[in-house]
């Protein structure tokens, strides 16, 4: 056992020296802060005005930059114009119609039945009924027009993002230089909250549907590129070589052999693009995208929670339908037809759709209720839900509020004050020392650089508030998630349920979690933390489970023959072996928590997320971008430290 827990005398001595080193760094930092005011708070006059420079640069880029008569502004306008065309046409088709041509939009009946037909074509009757039922909800609950607005953005953004991602991915696999530029860029983009992209987009493209779509595309494209890279790299070499020996030119090899063979991974990429696009709908409404996201945002801000629930559910349903459809499409296997089918049978789906189209247009001529469900025929439970909720809060609040106040006053505020008190030399020193111990000079250098950037660009206070929020929520995530993961690893039935729940939770866009949290706890730090918790705990559960079930059986059997009780086996054998994996899960939890802090800014906070949010209406690019990059910096620091630790630990355990 001793070689597993790695406790022996020499490492004990080492441990002491580590503790001493950290103690020394901390003591020095605290001492410095007592002697010199500037160590507890970086002097304002030493802050580098990078914020202002960036803002000015983007303003110049948006207004004046250019070569001769050709302004950068013209370029952005041209891009916007190109993106606007497909969007306009999709909007005409889905909900606007072209009045001047007398062309009505697609009747809602046609769309509901149409999505059912698509479902049947891809995945059979169950998927057909499920998809149609979800879309029926949109019509019946009077959310049709907003849903179609949102769907228009999705339908246009997804192919654009997928195609750009595909080409970037191809480029990375073809060129080492491209890989060395693009891969780290994606890493940074992944770590930066998406709201931060919005500010420069507003400066360059203004507010409205098209800028919102651009933000969506930028945000949704990296997963496609990643899947493309993965897919192309995992095409079996036999297939590529047989293509080459068939006499393919490099281009034929790519388009006729590699891309089709990677089709499954590529489709999973498209699936992720769709999910990311829907995750963006509320965020995109901040730059003026109308649709469900905007309605949901208003409802949240006005605390009309019943309406928020209905709108949130609509987004979730659209997400789930598109998720199921694209997954089913990805997993479809080619199959030959047993008997030669008639033309009509082979084309039955398209024929069915044409029939539905004709019938529904005819019905629409006869009564406009078939085109757009009139308001009086829709239902909403929003008002009733609001009453119920108000009643519930009134009844429950006396019980909930003391709990909330107790946790806030006794635990959260002291913790927050502690983080705010921490002098920067202490933080800088401990982070660098940890980096050095875990990953050597390069990790120490990088993490130190990132902390320093946060300090000297003047984002220290909001950054520490973000750290405080993330720290508190991640602690709770671990306390809840790890035991659930352990339980799942013990019991197959629990595992099936929990993993299913994890899959479902991950299809929910992040802002959905704001609704129940505000409903129960109103606004405040606790609500922020709970929303983060709800969103970010999935990886903690999943990785704990995976880590435990991957413990090599030999180790388990050895423990049993050594006479461990089940409890001893868990604590002394399984958890230590699974710990690196669990830590990687916690790493992901931290990343998701950081991303969520930008979302919780919508319901009020004082952290970096709020800085981004505030920067939007004033188009203060520097403030928004740097705050976003600071969040990315925190994420990267955590990631590097944890990864370095996990790597070291895995090496020590001799597991892969």
């Amino acid at each position: 056992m001793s070689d597993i827990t790695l406790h022996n005398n020499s490492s004990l001595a080492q441990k002491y020296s580590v503790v001493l080193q950290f103690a020394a760094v901390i003591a020095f930092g605290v001492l410095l802060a007592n002697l010199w005011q500037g160590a507890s708070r970086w002097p304002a006059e030493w802050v580098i005005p990078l914020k202002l420079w960036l803002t000015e640069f983007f303003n110049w880029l948006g207004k004046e930059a250019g070569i001769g008569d050709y302004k950068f502004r013209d370029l952005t306008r041209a891009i916007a114009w190109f993106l606007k065309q497909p969007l306009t046409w999709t909007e005409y088709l889905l909900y606007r119609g072209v009045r001047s041509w007398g062309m009505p939009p697609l009747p809602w009946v046609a769309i509901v039945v149409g999505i059912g037909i698509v479902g049947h074509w891809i995945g059979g009757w169950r998927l057909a009924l499920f998809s149609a039922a979800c879309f029926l909800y949109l019509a019946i609950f009077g959310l049709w027009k907003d849903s179609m607005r949102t769907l228009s953005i999705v339908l246009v953004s997804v192919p654009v993002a997928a195609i750009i991602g595909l080409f970037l991915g191809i480029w990375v696999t073809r060129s080492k230089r491209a890989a060395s530029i693009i891969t780290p860029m994606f890493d940074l983009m992944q770590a930066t909250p998406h709201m931060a992209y919005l500010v420069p987009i507003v400066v360059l493209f203004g507010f409205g549907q098209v800028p919102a779509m651009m933000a969506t595309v930028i945000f949704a494209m990296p997963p496609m590129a990643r899947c493309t890279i993965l897919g192309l790299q995992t095409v079996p070499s036999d297939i590529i070589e047989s293509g080459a020996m068939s006499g393919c030119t490099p281009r034929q090899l790519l388009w006729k052999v590699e891309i089709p063979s990677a089709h499954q991974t590529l489709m999973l990429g498209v699936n992720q693009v769709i999910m990311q696009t829907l995750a963006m709908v509320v965020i995109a409404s901040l730059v003026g995208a109308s649709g469900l996201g905007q309605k949901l945002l208003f409802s949240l801000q006005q605390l009309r929670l019943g309406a928020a629930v209905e709108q949130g559910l609509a987004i979730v349903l659209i997400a789930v339908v598109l998720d199921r459809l694209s997954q089913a499409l990805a997993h479809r296997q080619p199959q030959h037809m047993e008997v030669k089918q008639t033309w009509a049978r082979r084309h039955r789906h398209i024929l069915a759709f044409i029939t539905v189209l004709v019938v529904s247009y005819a019905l629409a001529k006869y009564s406009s209720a078939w085109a757009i469900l009139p308001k009086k025929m829709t239902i909403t439970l929003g008002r009733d839900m609001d009453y119920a909720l108000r009643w519930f809060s009134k009844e429950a609040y006396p019980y909930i509020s003391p709990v909330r106040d107790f946790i806030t006053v006794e635990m959260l505020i002291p913790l927050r004050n502690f983080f705010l008190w921490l002098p920067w030399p202490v933080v800088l020193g401990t982070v660098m020392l940890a980096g050095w111990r875990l990953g050597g000079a390069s990790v120490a250098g990088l993490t130190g650089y990132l902390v320093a950037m946060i300090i000297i660009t003047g984002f220290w206070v909001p950054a520490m508030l973000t750290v405080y929020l993330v720290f508190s929520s991640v602690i709770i995530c671990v306390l809840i998630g790890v035991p659930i993961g352990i339980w799942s690893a013990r019991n197959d039935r629990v595992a099936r349920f929990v993993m299913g729940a994890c899959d479902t939770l991950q299809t929910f866009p992040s802002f959905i979690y704001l609704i129940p949290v505000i409903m129960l706890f109103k606004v405040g730090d606790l609500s922020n933390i709970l929303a983060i918790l709800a969103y970010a705990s999935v990886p903690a559960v999943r990785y704990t489970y995976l880590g435990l079930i991957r413990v090599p059986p030999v180790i388990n059997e050895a423990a049993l023959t050594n006479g461990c009780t089940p409890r001893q086996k868990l604590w002394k054998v399984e958890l230590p072996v699974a710990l690196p994996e669990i830590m990687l899960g916690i790493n992901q939890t931290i990343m998701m928590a950081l991303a969520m802090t930008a979302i919780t800014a919508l319901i009020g906070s004082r952290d970096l997320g709020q800085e981004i949010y505030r920067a939007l209406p004033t188009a203060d690019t520097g403030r928004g971008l740097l705050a976003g990059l600071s969040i990315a910096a925190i994420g990267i620091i955590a990631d590097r430290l944890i990864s370095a630790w996990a790597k070291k630990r895995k090496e020590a355990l001799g597991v892969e």
Partner: protein
Amino acid sequence: MTTDIQIKCRNVWKVFGPTPKAFMQRHNNNPSAQNLSDEGYIGAVQDVSFDVHAGEILIIMGLSGSGKSTIIRCITRLNDPTSGEIELEGEDLLAASPEELVELRRHKMGMVFQNFGLLPHRSVLSNVAFPLEVQGMSVKDREKRAREMIDLVGLGGREEYFPRELSGGQQQRVGIARSLAVEPDVWFLDEPFSALDPLIRAEMQDEFLRLQKMLKKTIVFITHDFEEATRLADRIGIMKDGRMVQMGTPEELILHPADDYVAAFAQNAPRDRIVSAKAIMEPAGDGQKSQPENSVPANAKIGTIAAQIIGADTAVPVVDDEGIIVGQISRQIMSDALFGTDAP
């Protein structure tokens, strides 16, 4: 014999590692095993020279990792050799530009892969027609040709199936049909039957011989199964750790193995079906004729004459086509030949 050489390899090296070319130059294009391991390079193919004659089946054998695939991939230029010369029909293959290479593969080379390498999203018909498609042949022509090929390998009726709907043996038939669709001069097969069950494998070997009887291609065939090699080969080359240890007819390898490695391979070979009387006889006779009934023909495989020789009281004379005695075989010689010299 020089005119019918189809492929010529001279001192071919393929070295894997960080900078293989520089490594080879450092060591005068002839690094030792010590050089390789010291500097962390892998000598997948080391100083290999041989010829492939037109119309023959040359089999390359060796344990897994001995460099069989790599040498074939050097000839097809799926890998670029680190040094050495390779000629195809007298033309320098290593000087071929990427465009010329595509042309060569489109018209002169066909290859069959161990794991079939079929395109999963295309039907049997479309897989077989694929090499013709990339050449730009019209749909009608290429499908006609592909159907011929599919019939040739006995898959008629399965044209619309997808690879995952076929058994391993059927998939490899598709692979074979595809590689033959362009009527290549040289046909490479890299362990084509190794992924198949033994029963199917025997069936596919018969199929292969049947095809070769019709097509008379020049074939380089890789296997790690000596039995398969002796069934199919005109000549066999044995590779070990990247080097070609010996090349010759199956009979030569069995009777005169160059070293213990070759001998170990030959151990399990069906000697009775490979070795001929001529190869084991001792000298005898001085030009006279013998009665046909108490002699054996020189070309007979020893399996067919073993009973006669072991049943005879004295050594049996061996005669050539004219019936003239060219040697004799005793009971002792026959048992040595059948069971090896160390047999009791």
